[in-house]
């Protein structure tokens, strides 16, 4: 797991004795107290069944008819769409990535190189709160897009067009594979916190995505970049959305159920949830002793474990959603259901991410910020942070951390259940002319309950499993 990799790096720097004051972290959150697990699971169950039986019967979020603040949106749209603003933010993000690239290719192969924290903490964990707060920021500022745009400007070609057309059926399946790849790097790749290994992975990412964009057009990046697809999925839950071309504040649950997800969305969500679940599961005594007792190489076990987790999430989600098909009106094909319902799992993904990685972001994120001033390890202090110390006092409050974890997981579950309920209602009855269900066409209790029950059971299972994994037996 992430801190184990940072730990391995500390070990590998060979005997430079780490004085406690340096605080080379590598400690994890304590397991959840069992009472919290039971209480959280019970709360999830209660809310789920109350929503199932008693919540509204007509979709209330379709379409996005009532943005919350019309005046703000005009000003905001003007600012966000201004050419200067867009160029400025793209340049800033590109510079950040170039700084990390500097550390990667010219820095020292030590724990103090900020690129490891940049990749594993700032990029992968940090994009969650950023996307929740800012919406689809990465799609706008992705340095891959900036690079591709620059190349196209040099070659005088249209960035949207490439040598071949990307088939629409491919959707974001390449990104699902990319997420598996990043999860493998993050959790299993031996020596992942060494520069030679990370350089290979970074170059592979760069080449595959920029060359792919040259071949297929800019659409490839939205289809294949794991970071952008992850950020875009989480951004569905943010209150910022474009309605009729204007940036507006909307109800996050409305945004979640509004648009049609591309093919492969269920795979993306399964990969994200599966990777966090595996990260947690790999810390159990059962797993550690099984892998260590075996004569098979540990990487084989770990890869298998990661794949099994992702497949388990994917298959269970598929089953839960496919069983909804008979209740849809107009009738949908069963294979479409996982894709249509995939965004409703995003709150659960976000809850899992917060529960597992929040303290990591707080502590190791600070450490990365401190080392950010000295990417080459030459004693620089460019941003003035090099002399600061990490405030790890969050570890002194394990109960508060445990409460945050339970609230994140159960809260994510509640939002997921409500979003799934809303989306199910949209699928169970045809929309009238104004977008709402025609009166009298509301689905009956039998449809609502039987249609949603499989997915509800699956979501309760995810939540209870998540809580149990945090209890870390």
């Amino acid at each position: 797991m992430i801190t184990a990799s940072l730990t391995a790096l500390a070990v590998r720097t060979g005997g430079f004795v780490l004085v406690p004051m340096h605080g080379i972290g590598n400690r994890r959150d304590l397991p959840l107290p069992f009472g919290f697990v039971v209480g959280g699971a019970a709360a999830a169950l209660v809310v789920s069944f109350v929503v199932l039986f008693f919540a509204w019967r007509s979709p209330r979020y379709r379409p996005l008819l009532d943005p919350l603040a019309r005046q703000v949106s005009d000003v905001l749209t003007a600012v966000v769409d201004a050419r200067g603003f867009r160029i400025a933010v793209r340049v800033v993000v590109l510079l950040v990535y170039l700084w990390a690239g500097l550390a990667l290719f010219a820095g020292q192969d030590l724990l103090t190189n900020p690129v490891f924290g940049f990749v594993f903490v700032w990029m992968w964990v940090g994009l969650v709160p950023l996307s929740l707060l800012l919406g689809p920021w990465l799609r706008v500022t992705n340095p891959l897009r900036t690079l591709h745009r620059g190349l196209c400007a040099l070659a005088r070609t249209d960035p949207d067009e490439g040598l071949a057309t990307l088939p629409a059926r491919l959707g974001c399946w390449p990104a699902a594979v990319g997420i598996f790849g990043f999860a493998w790097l993050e959790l299993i790749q031996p020596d992942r916190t060494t520069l030679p290994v990370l350089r290979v992975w970074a170059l592979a990412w760069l080449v595959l995505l920029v060359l792919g964009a040259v071949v297929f057009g800019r659409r490839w990046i939205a289809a294949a970049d794991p970071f952008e697809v992850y950020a875009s999925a989480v951004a569905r839950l943010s209150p910022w959305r474009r309605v009729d071309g204007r940036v507006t504040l909307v109800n996050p649950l409305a945004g979640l159920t509004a648009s049609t997800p591309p093919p492969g969305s269920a795979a993306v969500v399964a990969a994200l949830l599966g990777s966090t679940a595996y990260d947690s599961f790999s810390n159990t005594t059962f797993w550690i002793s099984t892998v260590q007792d075996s004569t098979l190489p540990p990487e084989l076990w770990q890869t298998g474990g990661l794949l099994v987790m992702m497949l388990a999430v994917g298959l269970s989600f598929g089953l839960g959603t496919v069983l909804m098909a008979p209740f849809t009106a107009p009738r949908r094909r069963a294979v479409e259901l996982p894709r249509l319902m995939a965004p409703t799992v995003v709150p659960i993904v976000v809850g899992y991410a917060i529960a597992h990685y929040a303290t990591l972001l707080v502590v190791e994120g600070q450490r990365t910020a401190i080392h950010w001033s000295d990417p080459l390890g030459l004693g620089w202090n460019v941003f003035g942070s090099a002399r600061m110390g990490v405030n790890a006092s969050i570890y002194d409050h394990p109960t508060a951390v445990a409460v945050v974890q339970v609230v994140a997981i159960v809260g994510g579950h509640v939002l997921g259940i409500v979003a799934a309920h809303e989306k199910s209602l949209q699928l169970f009855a045809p929309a009238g002319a104004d977008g709402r269900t025609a009166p009298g066409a509301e689905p009956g209790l039998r449809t609502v309950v039987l249609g949603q029950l499989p997915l509800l059971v699956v979501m309760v299972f995810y939540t209870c499993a998540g809580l149990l994994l945090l209890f870390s037996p």
Partner: protein
Amino acid sequence: MPTTTRRSTRATGLAGLLVAGLAVCAVITGCTPAPTSDDGSGSASGSAAPAGSPSASSGSTPSASSSASAPVVITIKLVDGTVSPNGSKIDVRRGQTVRLDITSDHDDEVHVHGFDIEIPVTANTPVTKEFVADQPGSVEIESHEPEKIIAIMNVR
């Protein structure tokens, strides 16, 4: 009008059920006893003690006194590429002394992460190391050749 009455009744029922259900959950959470660390001796040569329940001490440990100042003893054996304990979870109270009794059949190093302790071990020479677990958190104790997790210490 019937629709309004039914809707408001349903809304009231919904709210009432939610409040009642969450109250039950809060009671469950509050009433479950908080996990305590093992009283004094927590030798874990291979047995995994689930957090929150008192574990039966096994193996060779000094007499179990229930004062918090008695050290937690972890007997570590590195034999033939295997480690014992093999990934067990060990509960330690913050401020408690931890003593590692290590024997190995080959030259190795034992690392206690979080406390940044590296203990070199020579073949067939028992080594003892004591330290105070003064910071809370979950830390790994692992061997270096091969890299295996011996135990995970949960310091509360």
